[in-house]
């Protein structure tokens, strides 16, 4: 009797150890997706965590509607977290290092390739998703090394807003060429008012605003020292040096440009459709939008694509990863694209939806046209785009402050 005891004790200890090991394995499996509560024992996914940066209403509530609709459709609950736009990447980095990335992650489209390059995202092709019918520019932005890593239901771009009353008063037609733009801006400038407002600050935002001019004129980010790029920069320089645009553009954000426009201190502005809700709050300002003017009449306007893509971070829990991919697919259904585009003044990313959309929402007509030919910032350079963007905004700053001519600015900014 006595002699058997140690054996029993050993056996029970062994059983306990096995049980603990089993628990441990389970725990590891769950901590991988950073949620834990989502997977029930049978493997059925009951909830997904979502991270995005639409942290202000009305966007926040409008996006929530779309998320909830897809959640209901897939029979899951959504745990959503929103953070301010400029802190999203930092948040993602924190979550990545603590292995607590959400199941579905929203990223600004030029960031998708950079994050995909780190190996954090699941290729969507393997999960049954594709980008059929999506405008090429967006496909370029959300693909990395031939694989699709994100899908953007809606997009936006830049065009030229103008104040109808001011143009009518000055007898100016909305400009179609750069010469007309310069002449119009000059004519519309008077004490206390500038002809045009844009953003040329030393951030990626300043580079983004420069792209319509640069790309429309045939400039390319792979060859920033080309005469076409210099010509585009000369347009910015001319507008500022003639006094048609404020010298403060080198510090302005797009929000500042909009504020100037709303306050009647600028007759035109380069800006995007996300400003429309703010413009509608000021019914006194009568405005319209045209595509970005051309340098030569035979050019087509090429603007950059904005908007956010939804991605699926890699997840050890296959069922959950698949559900997250299904969720992204649902967000990119025709139905949701149109709903979000209409409610949030953005544009559907599927070519087939654009024409009907422009008819339904006339204020977005110029943007809908602009989007068809628009390019993505990361389409050619991929995760090297930030380097080029930096050279672009540095060159703009050098030229607008008179430290370099438009011809030399890019050379100087790129350190050669």
């Amino acid at each position, binding site marked *: 009797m006595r002699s058997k005891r140690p054996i029993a004790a050993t056996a029970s200890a062994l059983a306990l150890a096995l049980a603990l090991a089993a628990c441990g394995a389970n725990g590891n499996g769950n901590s991988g997706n950073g949620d834990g509560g989502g997977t029930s024992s049978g493997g059925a996914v009951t909830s997904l965590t979502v991270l995005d940066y639409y942290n202000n209403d009305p966007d926040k509530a409008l996006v929530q509607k779309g998320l909830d609709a897809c959640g209901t459709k897939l029979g899951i609950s959504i745990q959503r977290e929103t953070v301010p736009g400029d802190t999203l*990447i*930092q948040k993602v*980095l*924190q979550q*990545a*290092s603590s292995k607590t990335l959400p199941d579905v992650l929203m990223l600004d489209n030029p960031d998708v390739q*950079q*994050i995909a*390059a*780190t*190996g*954090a995202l699941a290729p969507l092709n393997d999960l049954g998703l594709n980008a059929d019918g999506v405008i090429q520019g967006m496909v370029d932005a959300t693909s990395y090394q031939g694989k699709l890593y994100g899908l953007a239901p809606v997009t936006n771009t830049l065009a030229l807003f103008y104040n109808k009353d001011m143009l009518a008063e000055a007898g100016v037609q909305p400009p179609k060429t750069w010469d007309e733009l310069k002449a119009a801006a000059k004519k519309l400038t008077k004490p206390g008012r500038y002809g045009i407002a844009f953003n040329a*600050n*030393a*951030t990626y935002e300043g580079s983004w605003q420069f792209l319509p001019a640069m790309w429309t004129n045939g400039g390319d980010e792979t060859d920033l020292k080309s005469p076409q790029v210099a010509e585009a920069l000369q347009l910015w320089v001319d507008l500022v040096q003639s006094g048609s645009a*404020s*010298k*403060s553009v*080198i*510090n302005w954000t797009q929000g500042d440009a909009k504020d100037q426009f709303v306050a009647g*201190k600028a007759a035109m502005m380069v800006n995007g459709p996300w400003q429309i809700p703010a413009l509608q709050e000021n019914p006194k300002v009568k405005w319209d939008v045209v595509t970005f003017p051309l340098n030569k009449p035979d050019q087509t306007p090429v603007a950059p694509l904005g908007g956010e893509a939804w991605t699926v971070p890699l997840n050890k829990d296959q069922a959950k990863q698949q559900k997250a991919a299904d969720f992204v697919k649902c967000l990119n259904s025709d139905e949701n694209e149109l709903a979000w585009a209409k409610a949030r003044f953005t544009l559907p990313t599927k070519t087939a939806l654009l024409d009907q959309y422009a008819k339904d929402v006339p204020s977005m007509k110029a943007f809908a046209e602009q989007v068809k030919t628009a390019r993505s910032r990361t389409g050619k350079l991929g995760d090297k785009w*930030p380097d080029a963007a*930096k050279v672009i905004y*540095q060159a703009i*700053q*050098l030229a*607008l*402050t008179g*430290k370099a001519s438009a011809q030399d600015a890019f050379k100087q900014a790129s*350190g050669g």
Partner: protein
Amino acid sequence: MAQATLTRSVAVRRQRGRRGESLTKVLFVLPAALAMAALFGYPVVKNVVMSLQDYSLRTFFTGQAPFVGLKNYAAMVSDQLFSQAMVNTALFTIGSIAFQFSIGLALALFFRRNFPLGGLLRSLLLLPWLLPLIVSSATWRSILEQDNGILNRTLTGLHLIDQPVPWLNSPSVALIAVIGVNIWIGIPFNVTLLYSGLSEIPDELYEAGQLDGATGRRAFVHITWPNLRAVAGVLLMLGVVYTIKVLDIILGLTGGGPANATQTLATQSYERSFVDFKFGEGAALSNLLIGLSFLFAIFYLRSTRRAVDE
């Protein structure tokens, strides 16, 4: 019997006590040492290690940061903005501290005289210090705006200038404007410390000095300044350490622009880490900043030790 046990136990306790005493000393130091190691040692060591690694976006996802030796430091020194950032940091630090200190001293001397509402005014003077820096810089950004800023409007209204001054828009003026704002923010700190330093000087010294004919400027040179030197030393040392790493004010006002005219080591370090995601190079730059601050701290400690020895 009872007596004997007692004495023995006291003796044992004493013996143990001696050993315990040194243990107690260690135990007293331990929490502070642990706190130092965790809160100061770890970040510094981590920062040094990081500066020797290729610490990029990828590192956060894979946990891998290859060792690259001094490559980050080489990249830092060879960057085309490095020398400009060094010069700007020096100008920013020296300019800020010179004016903060002299204006602060003048105001402290002024408030030393008792006059009605002096206390209230002195506490109002603290306001710039109480405002969150990001609020101050946003406010100053609108004040310094070229076209509609209140400063240019006032100056043109007073016919002091014909053309609006491009405070934040011209590479040749922006650094001066940024230094000006930093001086404004730093004055309260200087006034407060210098005022308390002045209050420490006993009135008898001035009375005795008066008998010997030391009044006005001579009283300042022979009584006030020698007694204020210790406070001034601390103040200048802290000033350098605070100012050399100023980030939020510059980011809020100019973001380092226009055309990099207000880039300092601190803004460059921030940009490397959080815009370019080259955390290794960012760490190299911040190590340089830590090193510079450390130099000033050593300089200060040595000068005070000499003062104590005297």
